[in-house]
């Protein structure tokens, strides 16, 4: 489902050149739940961003769902992200000006199909799945951290993407809340066979996934 081949990522400033990813090759199968671990600054998030087409590799190739995306324009990449990928961020990144249901509806708006009522109903279904059906009209600022992350998950799954990329989704939550989020992700992976790649610092969380990929200083550790 996800195939990284000899991926390198170099950040250059006028004086310094930093190798963030060093020759990473990785295969994630459809329906697999993989966690990525490693110390801070080892390139975990960079790898996730490259997988999520939010950033381009300096060299190497990224293939998602058997499609080589290196030649895609920004416009096509945006469309591909919209239809195939869902993101969950450590700091939620909800839009505070919008109600919960409008936040969740966001990916469907950019899909440019379906009526507003249909989109709303899909968003409510997604909120149902994360147990927040009763909070549709709340603002993100009125929710707890765990609830915010559940809204973020609902937003990631509303478009029924085949891949979910989660960047430390439990990082800002206590262990109980973290486990709740993890349970939702596990259920999602199991019931709808969504491929999930999750960056985490938490060994207990990581152990619940199918496989752990470890990075150190930009290189994959076996």
């Amino acid at each position, binding site marked *: 489902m996800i195939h990284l081949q000899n991926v390198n990522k170099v950040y250059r400033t006028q004086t310094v050149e930093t190798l963030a990813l060093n020759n990473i090759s990785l295969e994630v199968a459809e329906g697999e739940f993989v966690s990525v671990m490693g110390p801070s600054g080892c390139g975990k998030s960079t790898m996730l*961003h490259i997988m*999520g087409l*939010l*950033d381009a590799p300096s060299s190497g190739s990224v293939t998602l769902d058997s499609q080589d995306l290196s030649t895609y324009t*920004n*416009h096509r990449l*945006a*469309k591909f*992200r*919209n*239809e195939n990928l869902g*993101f969950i*961020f450590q*700091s*939620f*990144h*909800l*839009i*505070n*000006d*919008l109600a919960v249901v*409008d936040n969740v509806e*966001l*990916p469907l*708006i*950019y*899909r*440019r199909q379906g009526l*507003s009522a249909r989109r709303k109903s899909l968003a409510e279904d997604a909120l149902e799945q994360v147990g927040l059906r009763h909070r549709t009209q709340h603002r*993100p600022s009125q929710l707890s951290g765990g609830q915010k992350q559940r809204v973020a998950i609902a*937003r990631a799954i509303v478009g029924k993407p085949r891949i979910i990329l989660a960047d430390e989704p439990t990082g800002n939550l206590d262990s109980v809340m973290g486990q709740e989020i993890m349970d939702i992700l596990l259920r999602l992976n199991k019931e709808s066979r969504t491929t999930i790649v999750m960056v985490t610092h938490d060994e207990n969380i990581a152990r619940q996934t199918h496989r752990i990929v470890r990075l150190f200083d930009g290189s994959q550790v076996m």
Partner: protein
Amino acid sequence: MLKNYIKLAWIVLGRKKLFTFISLFGISFTLMILMVLTAYFDSELGSHPPLSKSDRISFLNRVVMEQILPDTTRIIDSTAIDGVMANDTTLNIGERTINYSSSSASYSLLDRYLRNVPYAEITSFFSPSQSFDLFINNKKLVFNTLYTDGYYWDIFDFEFVEGDPYRQPAVDDRSPVIVISDAARDAYFGSGVNALGQEIALNRQLFRVVGVVKEISNSKGFLHAEVYLPLTHIQPGILKEPGLMGGFEAAFLSARPADRLKLEAEVARKAAVIPLPDPENYNTLTLQTHTLLEGFALRVLSENDKTVALRWLYSIVGSLLVLFMLIPTLNLINVNVTRILERSDEIGVRKAFGARTRDLLIQFVFENVLLTLIGGIIGLILAIWLIYTLNTSKVLGGVILSFSPSVFVYGFFITLFFGILSGLLPAWRMSRLHVIEALKQNAA
């Protein structure tokens, strides 16, 4: 999609109240000033009665006599060329004005030389700027007077609220007839009283009112008066004064607007054949004609040269307009950059979930357009209020401003254009922001 844009824009504008207030103030204030300024210029220079034919009228109200002499200056420079002194002489051949005199024209000048100017369909002579004191019911009234010929009423289409103007035969016969303004009627006879056929005593002579005109702005001396009299009633002797200068002005109506310049050239040509009364002191005569706009520029800027005055007027008005439009634009751009920067997190999220640069541009520009629309409506209300206040308080003298819907539409579209522009620039910059950068800048 549109519904979402409106909803979000509404929420954002409501949340950032200070920002919204500053922006709205800028937009509405600009529109208001623009509307009032244009209303003023329209009232002063537009084609409205009694100046409906203004594009065909040339005015002559300045006769200039000068003594211009050839003036040659010789400059001798000495320079050393190869160690030998040499003289280098430069001659500047120019002119020098030693005597200058300007005034409005005498009746005899106009009557003798400018009665039949080619391209002039109608020619009228008149003398403004005189006044009579009248006492009625122990109250003193000052009536400004215009002595006119009968053709005056054919060039200037005054709105008659009662009766008709006097015609040329009545002028030639020295008929004791008079046209008064409605304000003069109200002051002299009482408000709303029918004045036709009634008499007014001026300078110990009784005049019968034959017409009442709607009062007009006192900013135009050649039109504004309380009483209009046949010019044959002017003090004896004035019409026969032999000099070139006096208290008269002329207006020429050409058949077509295109003939106006030809007419002015003909008037200028006439100056060459008019003998100067005092050739020892004056050797050049100029008859200065101008249009309504040029006249306004000359008057407002106290200039002598109409071309220079017009250029100045255009520059000043143009700069003011640009400045007035630029202030809210720069203000909006500035506020927008800050506002959109604060929302980089939102931009990142939207991009991650599939928003294209175009979607974000439309969203942010839409917010600005909505803001401009609201500002436009407030500006419209403010402009109507200000015009009403200026008219009722008479701060601008007799100038009556009228609201012009077309000016509002133009002004509104210009503001909208700047609204879009001011939203587009920062939005374009921000929408091109890299997703990762956008997400890093601000975390919710």
